[in-house]
């Protein structure tokens, strides 16, 4: 490799003998712009064109606020459930040896592969009052299908692999000698898990939570079947966008979508900060 004679100050691209930079970068940028950037900026442009009073009226509409609260609230709960059970599933898959482990491991990805509409009708049938699970919960007075609880169930299904697949590789990398050292020094199992293992896993768990949460907030297909879709009670924000579109109320659909995007990005930002903080704290 030859080094540049005088180190030029600013250089867009490092020199390379490999051809095709202009072609591949040009094509990639053009495709990205056409498919993603122009349509997304169209959305931002349309919501900016609404003007502040109209935007504010849509944003503070009781139905909008309730839909956003339900979407973010149920997604938060579901992600929390997945943090507990997803971490447990990852632990069992990484640490224990049992027949059929590969099959169980592969099954964890089912929610990635199963179309959301299929998941939606399957879960609804299971949790309906006369369904296999709904029938068992009915005598206990627990109604799942057609309530916000149903939304949480659907989002737990959708979000599970995000937590498992984020935590699992980090768990595999844990050096077991650290645990042995802690045990030698007199720590009991619970202390080892909470003081030695958990700090190392915390950033991955936070990331898994964030991915499951972000996916849950936007989820539509699996939720609309089981939710019951009662305005103010079990109507999620993506569904409200669809309803406004069907009413040809483009401004409202646009404004709700813009709010959802903004909230999601704020959330991702916060999670990034928390991750940086926990990495520093537990480094």
């Amino acid at each position, binding site marked *: 490799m030859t080094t540049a004679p005088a180190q030029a100050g600013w*250089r*867009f691209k*490092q020199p390379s*003998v*490999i*051809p095709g930079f202009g072609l*591949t970068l040009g*094509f*990639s940028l053009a*495709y*990205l712009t056409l*498919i*993603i950037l122009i349509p997304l900026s*169209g*959305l931002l442009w349309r919501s900016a064109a609404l003007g502040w009073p109209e935007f504010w009226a849509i944003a503070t509409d009781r139905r909008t606020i309730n839909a956003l609260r339900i979407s973010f609230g149920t997604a938060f709960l579901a992600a929390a459930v997945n943090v507990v059970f997803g971490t*447990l*599933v990852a632990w*069992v898959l990484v640490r*224990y040896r049992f027949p059929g482990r*590969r099959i*169980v491991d*592969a099954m964890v990805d*089912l*929610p*990635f592969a*199963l*179309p959301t*509409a*299929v998941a939606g*009708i*399957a879960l609804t*049938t299971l949790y309906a009052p006369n*369904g296999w*699970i709904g029938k068992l919960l009915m005598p206990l007075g627990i109604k799942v299908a057609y309530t916000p609880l149903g939304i949480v169930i659907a989002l*737990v*299904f959708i979000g*599970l*692999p*995000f937590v498992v*697949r*984020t935590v699992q590789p980090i768990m595999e990398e844990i050096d077991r000698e650290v*645990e042995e050292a802690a*045990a030698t020094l007199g720590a*009991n*199992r619970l202390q*080892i898990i909470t003081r030695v293992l958990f700090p190392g896993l915390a950033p991955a768990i936070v990331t898994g939570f964030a991915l499951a949460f972000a996916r849950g*907030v*936007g989820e*539509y*297909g699996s939720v609309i*079947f089981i939710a019951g879709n009662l305005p103010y009670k079990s109507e999620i924000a*993506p569904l409200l*966008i*669809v309803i406004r*579109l069907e009413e*040809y109320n*483009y401004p409202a659909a*646009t404004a709700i*979508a813009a709010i959802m995007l903004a909230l999601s*990005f704020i959330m991702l930002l916060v999670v990034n900060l928390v991750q940086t903080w926990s990495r520093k704290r537990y480094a």
Partner: protein
Amino acid sequence: MPDPEIKSYEPHHGSRSAAVTESRPARVALMAVAFAFLGIFLVLPLIIVFNEAFAKGIDAYTEALGNPDTRSAIRLTLLVAAISVPLNIVFGISAAWAIAKFEFKGKAFLTTLIDLPFSVSPVISGLVYVLLFGAQGLLGSWLKAHGIVILFAVPGIVLATVFVTFPFVARELIPLMQEQGNGDEEAALSLGANGWQTFWYVTLPNVKWGLLYGVLLCNARAMGEFGAVSVVSGHIRGLTNTMPLHVEILYNEYNAVGAFAVASLLAGLALVTLVLKTLLEMRYGAEIAATRGH
């Protein structure tokens, strides 16, 4: 070199002391909870799909699948996947080449932009095209004047599908090609191969399993996408209904056998995807390990 005498003091892997693994009852309890959770949340939904599809016997099942509207939904889903997956393959390879083989300013930002569709709700992915191409949309009147139909037709469905499956191939290939470095390509070039030959005979064989992995996930999502496609499709029976949309229509008409029969095909697709994915991970784990997961 480990001293054999010292090594003999190390505990065997099979019999770690209680302090380094959980006690047997705790292990059994943890496994029981994990399996119960997975059984309820993953296995039961899968079983119920097939159970409901065959609830009224095999004849009712095959009859449901023989329905002309169902057939046209299957054809449309295959068509949409056949257009959108290759588009994203070409993009994925191109983006991975630019990002993995070169150092340039703004690379990290570009990589973030490629992942952007994953953090957008599917409904919004469809909405952006309605705002662009719809009757009230930015290009709506121009399209109408020129007689071009995008929304509530196949082009709109393809666009929405391309949007939601956009990152799949690229995000598998970028880390893989970055890990492999440029050595092989530089050797080929110095031996006189041209750029195209280098890509075709050197790079592509190196990444083929990773590429296949990405294509597999991309295809599963393309055939199963619901939210984005639902917004742009217009739900015209026999014309713009994909399989997932057809499942919804049949289900809302209380045609459970019909809905679950179509759903069983999609569940079968998901199972085949999982099996192929696992086989790829088992055989070519080292090659695609960089990007395991979503």
